[in-house]
C-alpha cells in the first residue's frame, strides 16, 4: 500500500506568542515549531496501515521554506519511508493555492491513500484536504476516528455529536484524520539515526493563485476583572439574579 501524508509545520500555540509588526502574521521570534497535532495523528495512521498490511510505503509531504525539512525528518524518524519537500518561501493562507501544489505532486504518484490532519493547528481552515481531493478527482472523507482498508475499499468512522457514522469508500481516496486513531509515536533514537539516511526530495511547489489574504490578526479584548458579590448563602440570591439578568446564562 502506498500512502502519502501531507503535514504542516506550525508554531506551538500553547506557548506565549505575539502578533508581528504588520499585524497580518504571528511574530516568528521565540516561536517553537512542530508538526501540526492532527498531522501527527495522520502520520501515525499511515504507519499503522502499512505495518498491519505488512508492506507498503509512507511518503510524507510538506510545503514551505527549508525549515519544513526538520518537520519532515521528524516524520521520517517516526518511521515514514521517504519525504518530499515542496519548496516555497512561505505557506500561503489560501487553501486552494496549497491544494493545487499538493495535487500537482500527488495526482500521478500512484498513491492508494492521501492522508491529512483534519485541520492545521495554526490556521484551522480545514480546507486543504477536501480541496486537494477535488482537484485530484478523488473521494474524500473528513475527520475520521477509525480506518480499515480491505479489498481495495476503505471503511471509516466519524464521530458526530452523540453518534458515530460509518462510511465506505473506494480507493484511491483522500482522508482527513481526527485524533481517535492512536497517539503519534515518538521517533526512537534508532529512528532518528535512520532518518538521516532516508531520501528527502526537494522540488519547487507549484502553488496555485492565492485569492485570500489575511487582513489583520488581533488578540481578543482583555476580560473584565471578576467581581465579589458577597459570601456564603447570603450571596446566593444576588448571584442568581446576576446570572439571569447580566450574564444571561440561566
Amino acid at each position, binding site marked *: 500500500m502506498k500512502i502519502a501524508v501531507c503535514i504542516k509545520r506550525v508554531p506551538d500555540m500553547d506557548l506565549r506568542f505575539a502578533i508581528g509588526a504588520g499585524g497580518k502574521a504571528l511574530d516568528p521570534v521565540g516561536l517553537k515549531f*512542530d508538526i501540526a497535532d492532527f498531522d501527527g495523528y495522520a502520520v501515525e495512521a499511515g504507519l499503522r496501515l502499512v505495518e498491519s498490511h505488512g508492506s507498503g510505503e509512507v511518503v510524507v509531504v510538506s510545503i514551505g521554506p527549508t525549515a519544513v525539512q*526538520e518537520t519532515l*525528518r*521528524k516524520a521520517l*524518524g517516526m518511521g515514514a519511508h521517504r519525504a518530499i519537500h515542496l519548496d516555497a518561501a512561505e505557506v500561503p493562507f489560501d487553501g486552494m493555492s496549497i491544494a493545487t501544489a499538493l495535487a500537482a505532486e500527488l495526482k500521478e504518484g500512484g498513491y492508494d491513500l492521501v492522508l491529512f490532519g483534519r485541520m492545521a493547528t495554526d490556521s484551522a481552515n480545514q480546507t486543504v484536504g477536501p480541496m486537494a481531493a477535488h482537484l485530484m478527482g478523488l473521494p474524500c472523507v473528513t475527520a475520521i476516528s477509525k480506518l480499515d482498508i480491505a479489498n481495495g475499499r476503505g471503511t471509516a468512522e466519524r464521530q458526530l455529536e452523540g453518534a458515530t457514522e460509518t462510511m465506505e469508500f473506494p480507493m484511491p481516496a483522500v482522508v482527513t484524520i481526527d485524533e481517535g486513531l492512536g497517539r503519534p509515536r*515518538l*521517533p*526512537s*533514537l*534508532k529512528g*532518528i*539515526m535512520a*532518518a*538521516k539516511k532516508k531520501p528527502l526530495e526537494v522540488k519547487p511547489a507549484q502553488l496555485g493563485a492565492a485569492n485570500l489574504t489575511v487582513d489583520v490578526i488581533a488578540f481578543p479584548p482583555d476580560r473584565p476583572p471578576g467581581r465579589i458579590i458577597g459570601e456564603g448563602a447570603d450571596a446566593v440570591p444576588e448571584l442568581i439574579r446576576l446570572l439571569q439578568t447580566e450574564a444571561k446564562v440561566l
Partner: protein
Amino acid sequence: MDLPFYFGEEHLQVREMVREFARTEVAPVAKDLDRTSEFLWDNVAKMGPLGLLGVPWPEELGGAGMDQLSYYIVLHELAKVDASHALTVSAHTNLGTSPIVDFGTQAQRERYVPLLASGKVLGGFGLTEPGAGSDAGGTATTAVDKGDHYVLNGSKVFITHAGVGEIFSVTARTSPGPGHRGITSFIVTKDSVDLDRCRTLGVGHAEELPKTKGLRAGKKEDKMGWRSSDTRELILEDAIVPKENVLGTVGEGFVNFLKTLDAGRIGIAAVSLGIAEGAYGEALRYASVRKQFGQAIANFQGISFQLADMATEIQAGTHLLYHAAWLKQNGKPFKQEAAMAKLYCSELAMRVTTKAVQVFGGYGYTTDYPVERMMRDAKVCEIGEGTSEIQRIVIARNILASLEA
C-alpha cells in the same frame, strides 16, 4: 539553550523526543512513584524501545548507535522532570553496561550487552561496601580461585538496581589488600526481584540468562530522594563465578572502574543540572503568577534577583557539563573537567532547589508542588558516584600535578 557549538540537528531531535517523553510519560507519574517508592517499571518498558536504555552503544550490540553527547542530553532532559528516571538510565547505561562494553571480551559483549542495551534487562555496578566507599582500596569482598571458577564472598551496599537488575559488574579481592592492587572485576547475574511484574511487562528478566548461584539482593533502602530508583544491598554468599566471567585483567579491576567512574561523573553532572533547571523552571513560572501585595512576586527584586542568579549559574553549569562531555566524545582527557562539572552541577542543584522551595514559600514545602521532591533528589548528587569532597581531591591533584610538571 541551543548550544550550537556542541549540538547538531540530531542532538536537537533527541532532545525534542526526550522532552516529549518526559512531559507525556514521566511528569504524570513522578509524584506518585516518589511517594510510594515504587520502581518505574512501566517507563522502563517504554524507554527500551525508544532506545533510551542503550543510547551510546553500537547498533550491532543492540544500542541506538548514538554519541556520548546524545546520552548526556537524555539524562539532562529526563532529570528536569524526574531525577529517578534519569538516574535509572545513568546507572543502567554507564555503571551497568559500560564496563562490559569497555573492558569485556568480544564473547562477553555479545552475551550481555544486547540484553542491556535493548532494555530487556537492567544492569548495575557493585563497588561500594560497608567499609569501602570513597576509598575503594578498602574492598573486603573476596574472590578465591578454585581452578575453573572463583568463589566470591562479601556485601555491596547502595547498589542501584540490586533488586530490579539482572547483570552486574562487581569488584572483589583476588589477592590480599590493603590497597588498590589485587582487585578484580567480575560479571555476575541474578533474577530480578519483581519477576511477576517483569513477565507481565515483558522486560526486566531474561529467562535464558544463566544466573550466578549465591548472588542475591538485600533489603531495599528507604531513601530521602531518588525514591523510585532501586537501591539495595547486593550479597555474595559463596557465589560461584566461572573464570570466563572475569571482566578485564585479573588484579586490574581498580584501574578500570576509575575510568567508569570518571564517565559517570559527567552523567551525574547532567542529572544534577537537569534537577536544577527543572526547579528553576517551576520557580520562574510560579513567581510570575503568584501575587502578593497586588503584584506578581517576580516583580520584587528579592525574588527576581534569585531567579537571575539561578539562570546565570545554570548557564555556567551547562557549559561545564557539555564541555566535559565534548572532551570525552572527542577522545581527549576529561578527568578533571568531569570532576569539575559534577562538583559544580551537584552543588548547583542543591542551591537552586533550595531557592526554588523558598520562592514557592509554604506551598513549596508541600508535596502539591514538585520542588520539594527536586530538593530531596538534589542532595544525593553531592554524594553518589564520588562525593563533593572526592571531586575536590581529584581536581586538586590534577591542578597540583600540572604545577609540578
